[in-house]
């Protein structure tokens, strides 16, 4: 019995101590009406630290913090293909002090491919602006006897079900890009899922698979060194990094476009002035030559737009990828 009393006293003591610390931080509370931002901003990144989304988020977060005069703290909430963190962001207080870095994965592919996702990419968020995009590059192992997309399609058609392609995982953009091409060209290349971009790249380099529609940062160095043969880019325009490589669209499949975009979102209901302020700052940051150079090093390039354009983009892509996902029978549970 003595014990319990002592515990109770100690709990009380701890609570008192906590109470003692309150006034210092309570001051910040009353300042909520003053100009935004009144306290550090939490930027939710729905992926673990170290990935390309995280690196880009951290680069932008640092600059955004300087511009707003408040620290922007990156809060990694990885898990379940980015849906866990995005859900947390959707449900956060809409006061502009919680933002999230959304991508094609969290705001288009996951909602389309998962059997159940607890947020609506369009209805639960206020889009602010895109900051960057990453292209995809179709590469072949040098041993494959095809020098361009046309020859590759002919080769694949001559031996249906014999060739393999690697992807960064089931339901990843790298799979969807190849599935779209499979369908558009009437090929039957077998999907071999790997656990991430790195292992998928290694599989293509080692000739374990013949093809990979890889994300630019992962495959570009190998393509430049000639260890992988780049035959097409997935974007609508040629990439400045590889100007000699044609787009898929100009190689005979007009309208084909696959890339990964990264942008900022706030929870639905965030005040308009806050959103406008963030859009101005973020657009300026993303378009600065300094940041452009940093993005370039990570295989991405600056890309900004408006909230309305972002919503339109999401709706188009939800429709486009939704069809591929359904046709390929991808369901993530």
């Amino acid at each position: 019995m003595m014990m319990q009393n002592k515990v109770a006293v100690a709990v009380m003591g701890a609570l008192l101590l906590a109470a003692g610390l309150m006034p210092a931080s309570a001051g910040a509370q009353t300042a909520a009406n003053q100009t935004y931002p009144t306290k550090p901003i939490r930027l939710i990144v729905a992926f673990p630290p170290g990935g390309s989304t995280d690196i880009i988020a951290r680069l932008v977060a640092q600059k955004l913090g300087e511009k707003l005069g408040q620290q922007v703290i990156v809060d990694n909430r990885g898990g379940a293909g980015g849906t866990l963190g995005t859900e947390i962001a959707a449900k956060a207080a809409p006061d502009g002090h919680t933002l999230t870095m959304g991508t094609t994965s969290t705001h288009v592919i996951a909602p389309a491919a998962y059997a159940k996702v607890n947020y609506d990419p369009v209805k639960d968020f206020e889009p602010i602006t895109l900051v960057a995009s990453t292209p995809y590059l179709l590469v072949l192992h040098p041993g494959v006897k095809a020098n361009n997309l046309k020859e590759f399609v002919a080769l694949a058609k001559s031996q249906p079900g014999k060739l393999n392609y690697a992807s960064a995982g089931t339901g990843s953009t790298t799979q969807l890009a190849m599935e779209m091409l499979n369908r558009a060209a009437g090929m039957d290349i077998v999907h071999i899922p790997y656990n991430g971009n790195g292992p998928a790249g290694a599989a293509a380099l080692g000739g374990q698979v013949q093809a990979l529609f890889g994300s630019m940062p992962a495959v570009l160095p190998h393509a430049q060194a000639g260890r992988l043969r780049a035959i097409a880019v997935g974007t609508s325009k040629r990439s400045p990094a590889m100007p000699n490589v044609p787009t898929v669209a100009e190689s005979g499949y007009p309208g084909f476009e696959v890339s990964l975009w990264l942008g900022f979102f706030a929870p639905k209901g965030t005040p308009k002035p806050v959103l406008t302020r963030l859009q101005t700052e973020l657009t300026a940051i993303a378009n600065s030559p300094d940041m452009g150079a940093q993005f370039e090093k990570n295989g991405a390039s600056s890309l900004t737009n408006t909230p309305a354009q972002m919503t339109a983009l999401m709706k188009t892509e939800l429709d486009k990828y939704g069809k591929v996902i359904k046709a390929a029978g991808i369901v993530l549970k």
Partner: protein
Amino acid sequence: MEELLPNLALGFQTAVSLQNLMYCFIGVFVGTLVGVLPGIGPLAAIAMLLPATFNLPPVGALIMLAGIYYGTQYGGSTTAILVNLPGESASVVTCIDGFQMAKNGRAGPALAIAAIGSFFAGTVGTILIALAGPPLAEMALKFGAPEYFSLMTMGLIASAVLASGSMMKAIAMIFLGLLFGIVGTDVNSGMSRFTFGMSGLADGLSFVVVAMGLFGFGEILQNLEKGQEVSSRDLLKTKIDHLYPTWNDLKLSAGPIMRGTAIGAFFGTLPGAGPTISAFSAYAMEKKVAKDPSIFGKGAIQGVAGPESANNAAAQCAFIPTLTLGIPGSGTMALMLGALTIQGIAPGPQVMTQRPELFWGLIASMWIGNAMLVILNLPLIGLWVKLLTVPYRILFPSIMVFMAIGVYSVNNLDLDIYMTVFFGFMGYIFAKLKCEPAPLILAFVLGPLMEENLRRALLISRGDPTVFFTRPISAVFLGLTILLLVVMILPAIRKKREVVYQEPDAV
């Protein structure tokens, strides 16, 4: 080969300056401090400290990162030895004998030998990268799905050697570890398995959760049960007699350090579970070559020296595929790759020719990082050992707090904390039933890779299982596996009677 010396000279010219040595010192120091925090392994530490290096000049930033990398790695081993908390999967093996040494009052020698072994292994690793990086990386590319599967199978069978008690229970624990490893999203089908509908489990159980639970939490429960004498005084069974290894300790460790280094250098070049597989292969090797294998699990210095050297050699050689091919073998390496690109080095086949000063500067800074680690940590040993004399009634609530914050910081997910409690209770129950957790945790790490590669191999071969025998590298590994099984089972059958009599005393 003949260019090695001028190249290394160029590297040291770039790397050695008072300023850079300062960066290195800061990196190692901060890395060690952060590394001893449970749950915050090299991956998390580098991610958190990365932004601090953005504004440094490239070489300074790389040197600091190398310092952080080695510092956190060594910090993980420190907690494994002192309080039975492995910082990452490779230091699980260090827990087995390292923590027993600490309990016997020999934490000092254990920490020192870990530092010395790591330095030796790091030096060899650095030379190896400089000498044979590109051809080694080519070899790693030859590893396809069948090779990985066979390698993992061999590793798992070898891990049964970690147990000092019943072989059958050890094998059952391996299977249990494989099952825990399955929790999460299946790479091949995208289906969630064993998640009980919790989205927090979709990416699987995190290593930190399982290790903190089984080792940290479970150990504290066991100690508290022993009651008054442990709970109010300290962990030590005996007085601390030596702070540094004796001549005899060094003599005993020389062989394990060299063998461990060789094993680590071999496995480290393969992208994947290099450090883990090499650490316990080294342990298994030491237990096999020892004159008296029964000392393992009770505080054998060889059981610390071998795995620690292997672990560090592998960590060093993990840079080979990362630097020369741009293929990161682990999350930590992916992060280092990111850091390199931010500093303007695009790792890949051209890096050596395009930016030789940066490439060789990095190699030199790795070695400087390793050297700095020893210089910094040998004097710190006294301090760490003092930590053990803190009364246990103060030590264990502090460990609980650091563990809770560490586990939570990985994903900021409350479920991780609840799962740690589950594994803490499991660890306690395992201890009661004399089931040793080390084989389980290694199977937990390797299991997902094994299944993934098995299914991938069969997918690529269109269902033909003979690929495992017709591909030469894979066939060699499977042959070795069978050999291992025979070597293990024969004495086990012969010794069966002995084991039964020994069991009441077994720790």
